[in-house]
């Protein structure tokens, strides 16, 4: 299966080609080349998936890890070296499919959405770069390769968020996204350093082999501040994941990242990059489970809190992309929770499977949501709900596909979200009831805010639009991806996921836990119903309720002031209390002491000028006195 490397290399070549000579091509040509290239990738990815799952992947009862391609890129020591290679196992193959599919859809969609933008070629080049990085990330054979591509996706994300580089808010958002994730990556890096120091390897296979035996044995009881070093290492690695996957409190960059073009949000900030953190934990799951179960618990709690937190914020947001962004945070938190509550092996590893399953389905319906939102924005040239309403009449395809996606995310049977979310809830139900109830509540909130979104956009009175800006259905380049993704959103839940993906790579059987399912269905339907009551028609009720909620509403609207907290940390603490004092110290103390030396020299030069008085008799006095002093010193000392 050596050709699988092509999946990674093709986008890179596309990036080089488009980046270097793209400017000389016509925009359409460049876009087409990018799209075709991505299409090739997608075809290859499907082939690989097919071949893996139905041909070569299963050895005996379990899914094997195939490394068709690997080479040493940079050798640190004899044991530690960065390899670049391709690792095929169920989750990476699954990710290949997800990424190429969504990416292809976004490529196609962008042909229409981005039409006429300056920098169209650059846009495609960057998309290719992102695809390359993301693909490289998921097929990483070792943790350092993952780190490399981890950084690369960060940069591509940065460039794409800041695509409209003349817009200050976009620039600020891109900067924020990069720096926050970079901060998280610092943890990741230190985690890798600690881990590799003890295990002497970066290789995933070696790390996870035999119930992560290498990790559990090599750490040998080192502790730091009361926690074992393994816990520290893995917690730090999770910090990296949390940054990319926008877990509280590192989530602040994601809503701002919506400044980027909408297709980019769909691809990077909904479907692929943001789940890298989940993927990372999943990749190292045995290590977490055996070496640092505490961290898993922490992940579960962080996830649960983030899910609730983001959902509460999503309720009050009026920018449709921000609603989606918080919804994304919330859904990714679901995946994290699933991993956190999971155990290892067989049915105990249900959470692991559920997490991957949700990742899979979420990718499609969330991409669909974003693309649909993009379609709307394309039509009304605004992100604000208040500028929308009644669009179902103008944009039927968008309306239907959006509704499908909303049903999916709300977890309505038989849409894909139902199945994956149900598995997560089931996994939580058995292990952490408190978390289960939280998630259950969040499911209701999810249904509510998604449908609030839906109704606000497509219903909500019969708003009229001026002739000039009359909304219209999007061109086919945008509609087709919507439809395709809608199909995925409907049916992807039917895949028997446990057959393919499990914590120990052994297929197992799952069934729908109807008790949990019914609970979640009830709450979801309730949510939808409430949303329908409030937002189907234009009314003042929401405002009244908001009025009643008072502080809570404002807090939610202001995203619980997390931006301000971080702003305070960076602006005040880092800038004012660290950097400025250092600057002052550097100029006045360090530099001042150097200049002070010069000053002292000059001063002493002036101070002794009196010696050179011009008076011969003084010279003589000095002469003889000097001689005498020397004589005295030498004679008597």
């Amino acid at each position, binding site marked *: 299966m050596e050709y699988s490397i092509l999946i990674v290399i093709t986008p890179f070549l596309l990036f080089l080609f488009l980046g270097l000579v793209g400017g000389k091509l016509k925009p359409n040509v460049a876009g087409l080349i990018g799209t075709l290239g991505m299409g090739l990738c997608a075809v290859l990815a499907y082939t690989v998936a097919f071949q893996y799952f139905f041909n070569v992947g299963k050895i005996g009862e379990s899914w094997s890890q195939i490394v068709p391609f690997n080479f040493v890129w940079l050798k640190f020591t004899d044991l530690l070296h960065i390899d670049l290679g391709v690792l095929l196992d169920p989750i990476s193959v699954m990710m290949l499919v997800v990424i190429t599919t969504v990416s292809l859809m976004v490529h196609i969609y962008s042909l229409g959405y981005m039409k006429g933008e300056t920098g169209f070629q650059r846009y495609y080049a960057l998309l290719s770069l992102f695809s390359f990085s993301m693909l490289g990330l998921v097929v990483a054979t070792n943790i350092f390769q993952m780190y490399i591509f981890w950084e690369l996706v960060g940069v591509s994300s940065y460039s794409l968020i800041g695509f409209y580089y003349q817009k200050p808010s976009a620039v600020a958002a891109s900067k924020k996204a990069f720096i926050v994730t970079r901060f998280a990556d610092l943890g990741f890096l230190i985690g890798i350093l600690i881990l590799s120091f003890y295990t002497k390897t970066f290789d995933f296979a070696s790390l996870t082999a035999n119930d992560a035996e290498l990790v559990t044995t090599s750490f040998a009881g080192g502790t730091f501040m009361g926690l074992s070093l393994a816990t520290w290492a893995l917690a730090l690695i999770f910090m990296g994941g949390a940054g990319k996957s926008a877990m509280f409190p590192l989530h602040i960059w994601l809503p701002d990242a919506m400044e980027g073009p909408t297709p980019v949000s769909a691809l990077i900030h909904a479907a692929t990059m943001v789940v890298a953190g989940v993927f990372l934990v999943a990749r190292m799951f045995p290590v977490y489970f055996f070496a640092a179960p505490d961290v898993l618990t922490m992940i579960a709690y962080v996830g649960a809190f983030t899910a609730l937190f983001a959902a509460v914020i999503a309720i009050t947001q009026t920018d449709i992309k921000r609603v989606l962004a918080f919804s994304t945070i919330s859904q990714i938190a679901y995946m994290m929770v699933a991993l956190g509550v999971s155990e290892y092996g067989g049915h105990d590893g249900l959470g692991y499977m559920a997490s991957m399953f949700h990742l899979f389905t979420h990718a499609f319906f969330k991409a669909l949501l974003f693309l649909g939102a993009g379609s709307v924005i394309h039509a009304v040239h605004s992100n604000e709900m208040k500028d929308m309403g009644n669009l179902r009449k103008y944009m039927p395809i968008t309306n239907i596909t959006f509704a499908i996606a909303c049903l999916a995310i709300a977890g309505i049977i038989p849409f894909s979200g139902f199945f994956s979310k149900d598995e997560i809830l089931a996994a939580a139900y058995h292990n952490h009831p408190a978390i289960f109830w939280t998630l259950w509540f969040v499911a209701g909130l999810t249904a509510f805010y998604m449908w609030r979104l839906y109704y606000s956009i497509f219903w909500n009175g019969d708003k009229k639009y001026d002739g000039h800006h009359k909304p219209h259905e999007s061109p086919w380049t945008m509609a087709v991806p919507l439809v395709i993704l809608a199909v995925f959103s409907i049916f992807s839940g039917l895949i028997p996921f446990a057959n393919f993906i499990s914590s120990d790579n052994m297929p197992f059987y799952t069934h729908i836990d109807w008790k949990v399912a019914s609970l979640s269905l009830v709450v979801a339907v309730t949510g939808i119903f409430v949303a329908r009551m409030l937002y189907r028609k234009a009314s003042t009720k929401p405002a009244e309720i908001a009025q009643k909620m008072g502080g809570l509403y404002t807090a939610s609207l202001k995203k619980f002031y997390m931006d301000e907290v971080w702003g305070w940390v960076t602006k005040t603490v880092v800038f004012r209390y660290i950097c400025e004092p250092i600057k002052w110290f550097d100029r006045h103390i360090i530099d001042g002491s150097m200049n002070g030396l010069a000053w002292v020299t000059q001063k002493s030069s002036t101070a002794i*000028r009196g010696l*050179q*008085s*011009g*008076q*011969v*008799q003084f010279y*003589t006095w000095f002469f*003889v006195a000097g001689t005498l002093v020397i004589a005295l010193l030498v004679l008597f000392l």
Partner: protein
Amino acid sequence: MIKLEFYLVISTLMFFIGIFGFITRKSMIAVLISLELVLNAVEINFAAFNRFLFPHQLEGMFFALFGIAITAAETAVALAIIINAYRKLGNININDASKMRG
């Protein structure tokens, strides 16, 4: 009995008296006169050492002899220069010869 240290004491005192004059006199010529005292003192030293401690050779005495000659030459040159300075500066006040300083 006249001892060596008598000579040495006299010459030392004269030496420093001369130095004192050198430092405190205001006229260049007076300074030069003080200098003569200094040199004279040193020559006494040589002669006395020679006679008392190493009378078999005449090194000290000849040193004193040459010293006298050199002193004479020195005085001559110095006076010439002082006269020259007098022409330029208008007097022989040593304090006036301090245009260059710092």
